[in-house]
């Protein structure tokens, strides 16, 4: 049986510590994500923005729409919790980015092969794409982690990793508009590896930023 004074202590403690309501959390989340996405877009356009580089307009439209659709579905799974406060099943958080990355790679390569644009580009190994993808994804990842730092996350590592993978998929859509190369090793290094790197970064940051600690 809990002591009678505990309720008073709890009420006193929460009165001392104001907590944001749902509306306030929505507002701060929107501001944080807005800043993160805006920052990523600024970097993207400073790096040259959308670059056609000899690609047919239809090819660009098809690859971009396909990758945006794949990334959008995965990001919805990875950034939201569904209807349970316990979060999505861990298996879903693992398989969503893996299958999305495979779908992403297959779509880009498949569509580009129809146009015969899958040959090797000797001067583009993929390191610039790697750097740009990680940079673009890091800002929304940071925004997601900061918006969740008071959310009493029950699975900080997998939540952080899911955010990282989601941010990586989002940045992959932008980088796809920037990079014309559809050579598979390049895509693996410059477009898919950043998703894994951001997921790992999210897991590490999630451990420190989201971990449930006793007050």
């Amino acid at each position: 049986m809990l002591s009678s004074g505990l309720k008073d202590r709890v009420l006193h403690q929460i009165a001392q510590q104001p907590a944001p309501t749902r509306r306030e959390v929505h507002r701060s989340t929107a501001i944080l994500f807005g800043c993160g996405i805006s920052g990523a877009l600024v970097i993207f356009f400073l790096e040259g923005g959308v670059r056609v580089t000899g690609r047919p307009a239809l090819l660009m439209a098809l690859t971009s729409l396909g990758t945006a659709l794949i990334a959008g579905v995965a990001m919805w799974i990875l950034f939201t919790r569904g209807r349970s406060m316990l979060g999505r099943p861990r298996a879903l958080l693992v398989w969503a980015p893996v299958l999305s990355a495979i779908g992403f790679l297959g779509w880009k390569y498949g569509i580009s092969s129809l146009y015969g644009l899958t040959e090797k580009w000797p001067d583009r190994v993929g390191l610039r794409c790697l750097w740009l993808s990680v940079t673009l994804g890091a800002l929304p990842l940071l925004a997601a982690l900061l918006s969740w730092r008071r959310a009493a996350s029950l699975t900080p590592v997998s939540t952080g990793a899911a955010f990282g993978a989601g941010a990586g998929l989002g940045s992959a859509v932008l980088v796809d508009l920037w990079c014309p190369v559809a050579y598979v090793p390049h895509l693996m290094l410059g477009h898919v590896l950043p998703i894994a790197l951001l997921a790992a970064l999210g897991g590490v940051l999630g451990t420190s930023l989201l971990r449930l600690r006793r007050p």
Partner: protein
Amino acid sequence: VRRGHRQLDNSRKFSIDGGDGPASLTADQAMTAYARGDNQVFPILYDLVAPRLEGYLRRRVHDQAQIEDLVQATFLKMHIARGHFIPGAEVVPWAFAIARGLMIDSSRKARREEPRDLDGEEDACAGFLSSSSPTGEQVVQAKETEARLSKVYQTVSEDQRQVVELVKNKGLSTSQAASVLGITALAVRLRIHRFYRTMRGALRDGDDFPKPPPAAKEP
């Protein structure tokens, strides 16, 4: 031994005026209102959730002061995170999961194992006993069975006891228990299956208490 899954009882209501009218709230509704900023419902939320939280913690923590400390910390976390609460979501499994996370954090900090509450385990075991009879012989038999099962209950692994307690005593679904414990729903079902196998073995074999089944790899 009672079998089957029981739905989580979230229909327990609380009314400010003591009645069961439109003002009465379930724990989920109270948390939803609190997340919207209705601070008046927090005492109601406390009254609905605290006893269940205490029951959950009592199985694991020996010290009453520590239980109260964890209850207080759990409510504080729920308060701080209220803006992230999903309207209509179930609050009790969330509260259990927070309490469990805080317990783990405490044990990490303390770097020592928490003492097991044997009395609580015996109570929990008694919850699984369904034998009750008006005749003296049956009462004696039931007590013998209870004693036998109590002994066997203490031989099963802590993992199995945790799962059985969440699903059978607290009424969580397998998926909810899986989320609370950070394992898969299949692992929960496996642990329950192994628990029942051990208990059935104890009933079948009389005084020869079976050893717990070897731990197989879980998914």
